[in-house]
């Protein structure tokens, strides 16, 4: 145990940078980074216990620090690690471009283990110990909200790259809160507008029983009302349930045109898979508000055959969107031909927006940068975007994809782009509805 007793050291900054080098996995240099990790391991344990970790006077030209809490371990680790790759890419780009008057950017990645408590502690660490200038990251409604609760109190900018409706609402929102990702209302609405006219109006929802799931349903029903869709049932299943068979006979009996799977990640994989086994697809079209690239890869072609869903980004859109092509190529170059996933792309955009705002504001001061972000109009990877004034929600296009089961070119060729809904404020909930004045 003795090695665990922290020994004093004059330079606490070190330990983190070691850690970060590791925490940003570089697909193309795995072997070396592993070795580096081992050294870091030795160093880190000794250094991590630095006394007087706080109140370090930071010299001019010190690096701009961006804290990046994300669930490197746990159910969404695949997505999270793709987020990190893409974020690293944005940082590298910026630094290669000379940084911000000589100041380079440093990305401090922390594992929030998909646990809101851990996320809050890690955010406190990033702010209090590492003195980060900004926070970007998170990959779940709960963790992003707890990160936001911490940053809001301390007036630190947080650009969330994970979905949630709550974070837009005045109750949680702060002038330092930005939301790069889509929110359930936008995604669900877009998918509804695409699917209801096409596949029918009798709808059953199989919903993960938590805010995110409920928000999805709300989004669908709103859009559905306009289109004359009727809800046969909204069946709520426990979050993270492994088996959905018990919910399926009832759905079978209801004979809906559309079954909307208002759940995420592994819940989606499981429910889609089991619905397929029950032969539901013979009479019903399966629809998912958020169809993740990674879920589809993990779930396999059969389970997702013919499933239609929404996403913030699919690499395949590069055929029609030049920005996407450019982004994919950068990513492929950096990571040995790999393509960015939807959430990965958000990691890139989230960091890049903040850095652009720093340049525009000519400062790293929270208020100045927040102001600059508010004015920002950008096209990083998927077409034009901007943050709505009242709630800092990024107004952006939404991609509707359909899962392929045959004729795939390679393992990444999993979707066909069915349609792209252009960015429009009218698809967001109104500012007044969210409790914002103006």
């Amino acid at each position, binding site marked *: 145990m003795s090695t665990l007793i922290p020994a004093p050291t004059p330079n606490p900054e070190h330990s983190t940078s070691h850690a970060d080098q590791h925490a940003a996995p570089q697909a193309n240099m795995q072997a070396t980074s592993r070795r580096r990790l081992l050294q870091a391991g030795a160093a880190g344990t000794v250094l991590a216990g630095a006394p007087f970790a706080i109140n370090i006077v930071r010299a001019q030209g010190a690096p701009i620090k961006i804290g990046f809490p994300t669930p490197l*371990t*746990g*159910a969404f*680790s*695949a997505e999270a*690690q793709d987020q990190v790759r893409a974020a690293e890419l944005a940082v590298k780009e910026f630094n290669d471009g000379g940084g911000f008057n000589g100041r380079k950017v440093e990305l401090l990645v922390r594992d929030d283990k998909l646990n809101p408590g851990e996320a809050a502690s890690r955010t406190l660490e990033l702010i209090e110990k590492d003195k980060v200038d900004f926070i970007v990251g998170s990959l779940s409604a709960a963790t992003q909200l707890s990160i936001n609760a911490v940053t809001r109190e301390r007036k630190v900018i947080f650009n969330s790259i994970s979905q949630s409706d709550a974070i837009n609402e005045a109750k949680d929102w702060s002038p330092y809160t930005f939301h790069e990702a889509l929110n359930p209302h936008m995604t669900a609405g877009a998918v509804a507008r695409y699917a209801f006219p096409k596949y029918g109006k009798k709808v059953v929802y199989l919903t993960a*029983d938590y805010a995110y799931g409920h928000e999805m349903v709300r989004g669908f029903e709103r859009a559905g009302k306009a289109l004359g869709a009727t809800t*046969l*049932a909204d*069946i*709520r*299943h*426990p979050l*993270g*349930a*492994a*088996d959905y*068979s*018990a*919910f*399926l*006979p*009832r759905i*079978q*009996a*209801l004979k809906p045109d559309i079954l909307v799977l208002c759940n995420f990640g*592994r819940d989606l*994989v*499981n429910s889609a*898979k*089991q619905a397929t*086994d*029950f*032969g539901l697809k013979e009479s019903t079209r399966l629809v998912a508000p958020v169809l993740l690239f*990674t879920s589809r*890869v*993990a*779930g*396999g072609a*059969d*389970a997702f055959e013919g499933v239609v869903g929404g996403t913030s980004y699919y690499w395949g859109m590069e055929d029609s969107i030049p920005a996407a092509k450019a982004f994919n190529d950068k990513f492929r170059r950096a990571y040995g031909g790999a393509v960015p996933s939807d959430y990965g792309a958000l990691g890139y955009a989230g960091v890049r927006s903040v850095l652009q705002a720093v340049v525009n504001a000519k400062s790293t001061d929270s208020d100045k940068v927040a102001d600059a972000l508010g004015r920002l109009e950008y096209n990083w990877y998927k077409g034009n975007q901007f943050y709505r004034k009242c709630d800092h929600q990024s107004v952006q296009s939404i991609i509707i994809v359909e899962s392929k089961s045959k004729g795939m070119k390679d393992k990444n060729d999993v979707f066909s782009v069915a349609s792209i809904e252009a960015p429009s404020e009218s698809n967001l909930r109104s500012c007044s509805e969210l409790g914002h004045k103006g």
Partner: protein
Amino acid sequence: MVELTPQLLGLQLVTGVALGAIYALLAVGLSLIFGMLTVVNFAHGAFFMVGAFLGIYFQTLTGSFALSLVITPLVVGSVGMLAERFLVRPLYGRGIDYPLLLTFGLSYVLIELMRVLFGIEGLPSSTPAMLRGSVDLGIGRFPLYRLVLIGATAAVVLGLWLMIEKTRFGLIIRAGSRDPEIVRVLGVDVARVWLLVFGLGTAIAGLSGVLAAPTRAVNPEMGITVLAESFVVTVVGGMGSLMGAVVAGLLVGVVFSMTSLLAPEFAELSIFVLMALVLLVRPQGLFGKAGLMG
């Protein structure tokens, strides 16, 4: 709300039984180990998970689901025996807490091991071609594979029952689960028996992993929720009672299935409520021996 036709209830029942089948298998393994070794195996869910991964691995390797059904339990069982020999054995006679907590630590290691070997996203798993699709039971369509699942479980339980009733090893187990002292008196090499029992228990966990794989997402964390559920089953049935494990497995499956139909949100809660009620009325579980672990 759809009206509750006999067909729907019937189908819901079958679904519950199919669910219960997996619970029962897991609980049988847990109960076997507990009954003999009074070890509460917190790594059981992990062994289940390992079974699912290896099942797919051997299936792709040999190209045959049937083969992996045979190989995987053997491999998982051997891992189990290694664990018993080198990790659990030193803890016998140190009370119930220590083995329990050790296996908890072991489960962490196994989960991480699978992450390293097969990646964090998990593996895509699909039903073997010949068992795909759904059949019309007359009360509605039901996945063929889940029927097979029920059959397979029945077969395993039957086989186990025969072994316990008809073989000498079974005799020792029966005696042992009543009173471990007896086994020693019978002049049996207890250490060897316990090793085999632990192996058998974990092998069954592995087998249920292979069987469950086609019905759900296979990922390193898949064992965690399953563990809690199979504990509920084991405790409801009565720790150490194989009969109890099977009955409670089906009971829990059906209760879960029925609440899913009538009050979906409370499906998961329902099984914990069931456990609380059973234990408060019958502290030793449905088939458990009173005073055990008292």
